[in-house]
């Protein structure tokens, strides 16, 4: 079952990307591209890129070296779009709050620099395979990307939680899916990059990656397209007793 080119393997590679294209189309029809332009671009480009890599994988005429080159190009495009998407989520969540948006930008830039440095150090200590340098290069690059990506998304959640900001449904879903996918991929690519498992076990890790990505695409469907129940109007009025106390404090200040 957990073999390369098994029916499950074909399904997990193709289905999430077809779903992602459908999601992009539905999001476009609902006008979500105005609110999340980078997410829609990401959905289209990532799906086409993955399907291209899939077709290259099953075509006998494509050599292994060519396949890895295609994979490399796709990886670079996907990495660029993912970081742009993190920026879009940041703008959606913190943009309306002018009082912390500037601080947030400063901190996320700092966090990004630190994460890149840590990822570079980790990459330097990861063993390289001289006979298959392109393969080991891909593994290390994946490890690096996912380390920075998961760190940035975690930062977004922690920063919002510190200020007790509530997320809107759509950016929350996008960030959650992206973050979950990045964390699982970080763990699996780290294990693969460091050659801790045999090739047979590496296939199992690829299945874990594909299944996680599939789950994340379904999560994006849920958060972007499934209508949620309208929140009941909150009864969180300013409590009268506290107002009186505040009034008293202000009166004392006025009478100084």
């Amino acid at each position: 079952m957990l073999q390369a080119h098994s029916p499950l393997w074909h399904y997990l590679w193709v289905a999430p990307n077809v779903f992602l294209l459908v999601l992009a189309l539905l999001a476009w029809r609902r006008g979500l591209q105005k609110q999340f332009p980078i997410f829609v671009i990401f959905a289209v480009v990532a799906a086409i890129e993955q399907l291209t890599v899939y077709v290259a994988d099953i075509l006998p005429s494509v050599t292994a070296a060519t396949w890895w080159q295609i994979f490399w190009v796709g990886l670079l495009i996907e990495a660029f779009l993912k970081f742009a998407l993190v920026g879009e989520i940041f703008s959606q969540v913190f943009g309306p709050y002018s009082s912390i948006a500037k601080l947030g930008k400063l901190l996320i830039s700092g966090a990004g620099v630190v994460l890149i440095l840590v990822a570079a150090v980790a990459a330097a200590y990861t063993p390289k395979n001289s006979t298959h340098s392109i393969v080991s290069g891909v593994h290390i690059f994946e490890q690096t990307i996912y380390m920075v990506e998961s760190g940035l998304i975690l930062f977004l959640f922690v920063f919002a939680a510190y200020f007790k900001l509530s997320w809107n449904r759509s950016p929350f879903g996008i960030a959650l899916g992206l973050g979950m996918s990045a964390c699982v991929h970080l763990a699996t690519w780290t294990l693969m990059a460091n050659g801790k498992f045999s090739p047979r076990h590496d296939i199992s890790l690829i299945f874990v990656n594909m299944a996680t990505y599939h789950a994340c695409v379904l999560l994006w469907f849920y958060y972007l397209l499934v209508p949620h129940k309208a929140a009941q109007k909150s009864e969180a009025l300013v409590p009268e007793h506290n107002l009186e106390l505040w009034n008293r404090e202000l009166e004392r200040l006025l009478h100084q």
Partner: protein
Amino acid sequence: MSLTLALVVAAAVALGVLLNFAVSRSLQHKQTSDAVRTISPIDVVAFRNLIDPAENEYLRRCLPPAQFRSVRRARLRAMAAYIQVVGENATALVRMGESALTGDDLQVAAAAQQVVNDALRLRRNSAVALARIYLALAWPNSEFAAERVVDRYEQLSGSAMLLGRLQNPAAAVRLASHS
């Protein structure tokens, strides 16, 4: 192996934190009314007295250095306690303001936006002030100013009262009679 293990553990912890956020988000709405109950009043006059540089200078002149450092540390700890309450109140007001943002009344929504922005600014300033207090505890002779926190707190009180008046007109009549 240690690098691999560290990265895998970090990824697992990050995933756990994300899932925890996902679960807590679903409970957030229920917690809004609880957050309001956590608001505690602050004695602004006492707080101002505590951070007054003139008071500090007076104590420095009157007390022997060792005793001054001890008193200064006690005052800094009291300041930290006040600022923690200020930060918690700001957090509760962020929740409260956000819950009011969803209403249909444009005036209430504008007041709520003001409360949220003021509360976030205050929360940010409180965090910075707390960090500076802990630094000042190590060097009690250093100067420390927390006026901005108090000023922001008063500004936030004003915004919150305006929101309260818009949401519940009967509650804040006394303020209107003095303003």
